[in-house]
């Protein structure tokens, strides 16, 4: 029974893949008079469906390790169904249905973690519902103008109407991607969600916001050229969006550096990475959109890998804070490589595909001459090295800081299989960036009526600004690495391993097990001394939202006093209202 449920669940997790490969032709479902849901797979939605198709089974596999939990499986299936509906939808109603199913089913999955507290749960659902309701308001507004719910280009709108629509839709999707200052729910929920579900949230659900943002240019093909002209070398809407994205990325990066918990760090890093995508979308040229798609792909793979690996670590050690871990490199080597490949992808270092994505986005920004944005993006991506390093140093390097970390063993195979698959995908993509361009990204660009990026060969990433050869980079690096290692080992001389982990040059002192040798928690703390970073880290939006909640509660309490339990008062009030209204009416009406 247990096994059958699990197999069924695994089968369910392949539904996005099945949809992706077998979908042909459009499907329509008439909901009400005038509201017909239409579903079809466009190139754009196919791209995101592919992400889902990759991610869903990879998260399902480690989920099978726990004892079978039918309701979680059912919710997961609903979530997948909702996301597929959302991607397939050809009209806003279908989009909204998918969007909402995704929201509430993910909320219920979030609740399954014992760590979810009231603030986390409430901020998750309320922010997402605000996003949904803004979307609903936007589509109703659009409907009131065009009398149509279909997702299609709208032209001839008044600028004011367009602005309203843009703000409504933009806010809705920006909440979903966790752009600042609307990000409050992201770190809380990614942190508190069940460990594997965090991977889903970060890798796949944040991409739905990106998908939404990518629909916007479909709706408004001419952008906001009539407002801005060409002052900023591009539409002002894109410029604003790009700045929102990059400010999000920068601030979230610094926040990530100051985190002391692995999952919170990854949550902020997700915000930051998705911020890059938003920036690239703001640029809007075909190179930048290609970069955004590439980054979406890489971020999905990387965050799947990292969250699954970290879930494995938490499973094996029971710890999630950097100060409680350490030295797992020898005990969990495969997980170590998982995180290593993950952070190389996250940091956008060559030769992994994160670099290809960064490269396209940089070139997009340079091509658009948006150099200040470029500078900010460089700042964010360089600063991300610090948290990437923290992420690998904290759990794996240094000294073990808790009894569990000293005795942990490698994660179970259900966790390792997805890790290995994802590592393979990342390395392959890094060597063949042109393949991703050619097979995955160009069809989408063509579908969006943009010039495809094109590639002369699968191992080359080529742009008008020059390109690079993935095989050459990887080949040279690997050859030199092997050569130097061999050479080094051939040179005579005694190389020996330290007999004790405490054999450290420690100013002549002798560190012991009680000496605090792990630097995981303190890392990045000194960054506060840099004035700008200190200023950023001192300010949060938590206070604002807490205040908002408090004020609403206070208002509710005040109005609530009206509802006394005394019948005389009720009647008195009714009669009084009757009398007053009558008097006023007869005085004014007569």
């Amino acid at each position: 029974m247990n096994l059958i449920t699990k197999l069924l669940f695994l089968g369910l997790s392949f539904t996005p893949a099945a949809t992706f490969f077998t979908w042909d032709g459009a499907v329509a479902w008439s909901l009400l008079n005038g509201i017909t849901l239409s579903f079809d797979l466009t190139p754009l939605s196919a791209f995101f469906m592919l992400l889902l198709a990759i991610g869903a089974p990879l998260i399902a596999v480690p989920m099978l390790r726990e004892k079978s939990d039918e309701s979680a499986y059912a919710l997961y299936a609903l979530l997948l169904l909702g996301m597929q509906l959302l991607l397939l939808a050809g009209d806003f109603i279908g989009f909204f249905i998918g969007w909402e199913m995704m929201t509430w089913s993910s909320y219920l999955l979030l609740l399954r973690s014992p760590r979810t507290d009231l603030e986390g749960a409430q901020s998750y659902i309320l922010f997402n519902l605000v996003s949904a309701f803004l979307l609903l308001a936007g589509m109703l507004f659009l409907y009131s103008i065009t009398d149509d719910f279909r997702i299609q280009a709208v032209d001839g709108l008044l600028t004011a109407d367009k602005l309203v629509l843009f703000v409504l839709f933009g806010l809705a999707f920006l909440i979903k991607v966790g752009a600042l200052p609307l990000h409050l729910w992201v770190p809380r929920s990614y942190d508190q969600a069940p460990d594997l579900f965090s991977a889903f949230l970060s890798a796949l659900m944040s991409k739905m916001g990106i998908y939404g943002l990518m629909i916007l240019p479909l709706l408004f093909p001419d952008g906001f050229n009539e407002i801005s002209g060409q002052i900023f070398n591009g539409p002002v809407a894109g410029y604003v969006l790009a700045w929102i994205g990059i400010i999000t990325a920068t601030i979230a990066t610094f926040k990530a550096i100051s985190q002391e918990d692995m999952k919170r760090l990854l949550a902020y890093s997700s915000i930051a990475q998705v911020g890059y995508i938003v920036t690239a979308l703001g640029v809007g040229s075909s190179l930048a959109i290609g970069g955004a798609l590439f980054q979406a792909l890489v971020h999905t793979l990387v965050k799947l890998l990292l969250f699954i690996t970290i879930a494995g670590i938490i499973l094996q050690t029971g710890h999630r804070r950097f100060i409680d871990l350490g030295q797992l490199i020898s005990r969990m080597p495969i997980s170590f490589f998982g995180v290593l490949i993950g952070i190389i992808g996250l940091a956008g270092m060559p030769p992994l595909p994160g670099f290809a994505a960064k490269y396209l986005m940089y070139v997009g920004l340079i091509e658009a001459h948006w150099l200040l944005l470029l500078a900010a993006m460089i700042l964010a991506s360089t600063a991300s090295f610090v948290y990437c390093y923290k992420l690998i140093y904290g759990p794996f390097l240094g000294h073990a800081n808790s009894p569990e970390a000293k005795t942990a063993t490698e994660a179970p195979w259900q966790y390792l299989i997805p890790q290995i698959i994802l590592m393979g995908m990342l390395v392959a993509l890094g060597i063949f960036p042109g393949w991703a361009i050619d097979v995955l990204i160009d069809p989408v660009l063509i579908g969006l009526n943009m010039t495809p990026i094109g590639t002369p060969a699968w191992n080359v990433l080529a742009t008008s600004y020059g390109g690079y050869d993935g095989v050459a980079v990887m080949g040279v690096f690997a050859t030199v690495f092997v050569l130097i290692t061999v050479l080094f080992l051939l040179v005579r001389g005694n190389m020996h391993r330290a007999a004790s982990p405490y054999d450290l040059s420690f100013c002549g002192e002798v560190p012991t097990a009680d000496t605090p040798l792990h630097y995981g928690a303190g890392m990045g703390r000194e960054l506060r001394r840099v004035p700008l970073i200190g200023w950023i880290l001192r300010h949060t939006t938590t206070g604002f939202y807490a205040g908002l909640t408090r004020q609403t509660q206070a208002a509710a309490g005040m109005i609530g006093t009206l509802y006394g339990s005394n019948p005389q008062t009720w009647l008195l009030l009714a009669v009084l209202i009757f009398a007053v209204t009558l008097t006023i009416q007869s005085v004014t009406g007569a």
Partner: protein
Amino acid sequence: MTLHFTPVWFIAVPLLLAFLAPLWVRWRLLMPVLFSAQVALFALALSWIPAVRIAPILETIVIAPPLGIHLHLDAIALLLVALFSFAGAIITAFIWLDNGAAHLRERPAFILILLLIAGSNGMVLTGDIFNLYVFIEIVGVSAYALAAIRRDKTALEAGLKYLIVGSVAAIFILFAIVLLYLQTGQLNIAALAQAFSNMPAQMQLLIGLLMLIGLGIKAELFPFNFWVPDIYRGSDPEITALYSGVLVKAFLFVLFHLTFILLADPTVARNWLMALGAITMIVAELVALRQNDLRRMLAYSSLGQVGLITLALAFASEATTAGALFHMINHTFIKVLLFLLAALMLRQYASLKLTDVHGLSRTMPLAAGLFVLGALAVLGLPPLSGFISKLWILKGFSDVQTFWPVALILTAALIEAGYYFRWIRAFYAAPTDAASMAKMEGEKVLNYAPLLVIAGVLIVLGVAPFLLEDWLQQAAQALLGREALLNAVLGVQP
């Protein structure tokens, strides 16, 4: 021989069965009869659909209107009657299958429930305003008695309070009816409608206000609904489900039926009623934020939904009306579901305070799951039917580019989410008192059968709302179609 089905049956059958109660007690058939009566009424209502679709049915009791009493079965009345009997059947089945609440399975409750149903059906069907008053009183009296039927301190207090408030409301209504009769000499609603515009404006206003306050108290609109939480909290949840699912809907119908038919131009009252609805909605949702008792929270949520329905009905466009009627149906289902769930939870938990129900999903997973479903539906989240009705309403507003109700409705839904999800989170949180958890008994699926039926309906209507679409649109037309109704009742008038 073929039985002659007439709309009278909707009133007569429950009354008759109620009077024969001693017989059922002797034969130990109380609950089967109660249940099958409702089911029969529901079947009867469904069998009328083809006929009503062609033209409204007019059933004259003694002599033809405007002098005589008549029942008027049009699409909307049929819709509501079907809804009432369905809700009644569900609640009855629940009481029958449930092993708690013995006092609800005895003769008094049997009689009172049937009377309540009969009265509600009568209110919806009747074409005569005094008759309407009589039904209001029948419903009222049975409701007061039902509130107190548990006969403990809180129930009795609730019953008494309800009696006071309800009577005052009835006085307001009666006063309005008297004034109407004095002014026109008519009691038939259609005839009154014709004469109403000839009355002096002052008198129109006075009657309107009296009606509004009287029905406003009954239909739980804002400045007159302060009684609701206390009564809902005091009486049994099964009974509360009847109030929220049946009674309020009947009164809402009466309010709008009278508004639309008496006023030649309903836009006069539109802004007033819309404002009333909007305020009801926002205030109730806000207050619900701070409620720590499940039943009080549900009561406020019920008020909020009533406000929403009022807002949409008052707008008096066909789309919003149809949407509002759909929402009425959904709300009945949802609130029946939620209140019955509260009844089930009360069996296990001494109190339904927010802090006491932590970890409820461990012991009552099905109840928690159904609560989630109900909450999602009431919030209007797809793919449940609440979404469709809300969408219909919102679409109706957007059709004519009126956006302030859209903004208000969405805001209210957001606030509503704020407290519903607080409860859901509590249900799924770690239990505060693990020891008492352990000794709770498991769930019996049989208890849940009626609730599962509702859940199924909510899902089916959410995925395939077109099943009800025609009917709802006809009902909306019937509610708004003043001319058609006057013609149907009074024939071709000079």
